[in-house]
């Protein structure tokens, strides 16, 4: 990625510029915050973000741990890749699962996606940040994901209650970030803000970054539920009367909790084919996320509550 011996000085490519910008943001947080952490969801955006972090601090390891807020319902392939990568890269991983949620047996089937996400993800994240006293958390969100994110700052400040106060965000000029905060306050930092979905894929392709195989098409057991193809990833998934898992060649555009993530039928089993499919596709990325279909779940509201 970084140009070889013959740099044409005036012509850094858009990916080189994006990478350099993300590195600068990460280093700034490490220099100015006391206890940063990188939220790591194992998805493609996290994969690209982690790769940039490895570059930003090389030859040192990233001077912060990764935090995976597990819900207990992630695809098994995600956990496998996570554990393999952590070992391979020699980075520290913290895993948190909301103990209250576990005690109450919260799951997406009986509680619905909204409750499950709130308890296991939003509350779980807050608990984890408090438990380890993190004052800065990197997230992989991008501004192109949807209209309401277009105006998001790169440094997004949260009160000591983790609330996002949209009226109290700071202007960001040049490459200057004001990371100062009071005790108890924290900041969510989005170093990949200016990347698009295509940029992320292209970067993963060029840099040969490991991703969860579920992004690539393969024969997988699925059921059709409410118009969405849901993969039967383990035997905890209760089948409705008449439902019978069928093998289909499918892949996923986004990854989360398997009962909440819709698959698409596809033959794209290489990275270039995925990118091709994405470029030719006719629907936007978040469509596969069941969570966005829940009516009261506007991103704005979720953000104020502490969901990314």
């Amino acid at each position: 990625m970084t140009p070889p011996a013959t740099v044409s000085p005036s012509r850094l490519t858009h990916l080189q510029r994006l990478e350099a910008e993300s590195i600068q943001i990460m280093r700034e947080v490490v220099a100015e915050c006391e206890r940063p952490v990188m939220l790591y969801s194992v998805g493609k955006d996290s994969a690209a973000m982690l790769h940039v972090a490895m570059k930003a601090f090389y030859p040192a390891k990233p001077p912060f741990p990764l935090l995976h807020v597990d819900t207990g319902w992630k695809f098994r392939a995600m956990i496998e890749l996570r554990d393999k990568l952590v070992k391979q890269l020699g980075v520290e991983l913290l895993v948190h699962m909301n103990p209250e949620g576990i005690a109450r047996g919260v799951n997406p089937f009986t509680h619905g996606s909204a409750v499950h996400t709130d308890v296991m993800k939003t509350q779980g994240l807050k608990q984890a940040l408090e438990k380890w006293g993190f004052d800065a958390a990197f997230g992989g969100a991008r501004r192109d994901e949807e209209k309401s994110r277009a105006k998001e700052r790169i440094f997004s400040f949260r009160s000591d209650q983790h609330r996002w106060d949209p009226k109290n965000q700071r202007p960001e000029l040049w490459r200057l970030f004001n990371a100062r905060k009071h005790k108890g306050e924290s900041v969510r930092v989005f170093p990949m803000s200016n990347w698009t979905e295509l940029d992320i894929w292209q970067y993963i392709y060029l840099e040969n970054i490991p991703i969860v195989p579920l992004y690539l098409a393969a024969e997988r057991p699925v059921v059709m539920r409410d118009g969405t193809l849901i993969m039967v990833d383990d035997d905890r998934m209760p089948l409705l009367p008449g439902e019978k898992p069928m093998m289909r060649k499918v892949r996923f555009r986004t990854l989360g909790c398997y009962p909440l993530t819709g698959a698409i039928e596809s033959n794209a089993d290489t990275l270039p084919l995925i990118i091709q499919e994405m470029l030719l596709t006719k629907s936007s990325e978040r469509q596969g996320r069941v969570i966005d279909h829940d009516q009261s779940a506007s991103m704005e509201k979720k953000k104020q509550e502490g969901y990314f």
Partner: protein
Amino acid sequence: MSHVSDLIEKDIEAYLHSHQHKSLLRFITCGSVDDGKSTLIGRLLYDSKMIFEDQMAALESDSKKVGTQGGEIDFALLVDGLAAEREQGITIDVAYRFFSTDKRKFIVADTPGHEQYTRNMVTGASGAELAVILIDARKGVLTQTRRHSFIVSLLGIRNVVLAVNKMDLVGFSKETFDKIVADYRTFANRIGLADIVAIPISGLRGDNIAQPSTSMPWYTGPALMAHLETVEIEDRLQHAPFRFPVQWVNRPNLDFRGFAGTIVSGSIGSGDKIRALPSGRESRVTRIVTMDGDLPRAVAGQSVTLTLADEIDVSRGDVLAGTESPPEVADQFETTVIWMADEPLMPGRPYWLKIGTRTATATLAEPKHKINVNTMEKLPAATLALNEIGVCNLALDRAIAFDPYASNRDTGGFILIDRFTNATVAAGLIHVALRKAQNIHWQALDVNKAARAALKGQKPCVLWFTGLSGSGKTAIANLVEKRLLSFGRHTYLLDGDNVRHGLNQDLDFTETGRVENIRRMAQVASLMVDAGLIVLVPFISPFRAERQLARGLFEPGEFFEIHVDAPLAVAEARDPKGLYRKARRGELKNFTGIDSPYEAPEKPEITLDTTRNTVTESADRIVEALRKAGILAGSH
């Protein structure tokens, strides 16, 4: 998102290869909704095929429901979505949109709203390499056009596109277009904008956006998209002298010490000589380290890690520069300041200043003038309010390396941060260093503080007593000084009232006057500590910010903040000088505790509760604390 290229379908790998070599252009669009700005951006997204079918379906139905185009597709709806957010009171300074064509990726800064326009536009323009200034062909050059252009010029954007929009509503008239362009060029020349490309467009109909217009055969220049795709952005940063603000020192083990940062201008090769600033020490670059292998050479825009041949003292905030044309080093500047906070600028109050990777303490003088952004007229001003732009002298507590903003945005642009709310309150541009500061170097004298203190056999420090009038500050300070004297210590009690009679007799009791009063007191105390004395300062000093300023003048361990705590009711009942009575009668304005606030210290070194302890007990506690801190250890 059916991209424009057929290559995607035919040969995706070839497409990816070409996409990999795309460049990036960041631009800002200036204009209001009335000028058709949202429509234009929506049209650019649409024409570059960045709209998905589900979004398109939503757009079609929204256009019928709430569109302003009589059921036709209303492109503005693609980017607006901001009205609802405004109603919720969400501050939007800049929205960023992304699109790409086969040649380039684009990041558009869109600054909505009229009310906060200056603040928003300055923020958006700070990151832009090109500005698209929109003009409604029916209205021509308006006040707001001049305002936008002034900010574009101020923020140093050299490439300007004048997009004369709504040409369909003026019958695609060449005369109208030519007249507007001529008017604009006359004005633009005056404010130093030279590189202007004018394009007649219709955002609504798509004329000269992605495709050349068939309705304006008289226009032979490029369509807007074609221009954006091919315009050469002057890469003067690549040819400018090397500048590398050190962001982070990378020390994974004892064998490696690297300086991580982003090259903000110029280039560097391994073996090149560098100078670290402000120290002025020189060394050579031994390696340019990246995870992808060492580079022989790195250029502006790249984030790298440098190692040096010599173990010179370099830390975060320093600037590494080429030795041939290093930046200047100074601590006082003439600057342009754009105020971005509700609370106005307070001359004399310390703010954090962040420039590059350096944070320092800054105080600003009263503005020399402010600028009316509509007329560019210079107006007298005592302060700057939200959205006001003015020219101010600024002083730092330390010298920094800098370049004038006009030659380098990253080493000449700064933000100001409120020290208590932590809010970013202003953006600023350095023009020149003030000569007086450059010529008066801090003299590193042979006889120094340590030598003077050693002669007295003591460790100098300042005891800063803060508290309400009547809390007992002076009485306690008096007693502490007597004790210290009896131990053979060299002291001085700097009394607030006495200083008001002499050094500070020109100051009043307004907030500004008080800020300056404290600044001078702190400076005097600092000189006395430098002389080796233990200085006692009983002084109401009601504002945290100014006490913080005072603290900042001393070395760690030298400043003892002593909170002489008495509730207002108790202090008022004591009223030794009869001042509370006067204040209550309204004869004394701005009296702390009555009509001016007292901000209690958050973490004082010593807190004295004067409702429980006598003056003697309080003095004993202070002496004990000094003993523990090693201040009284010595040969006596």
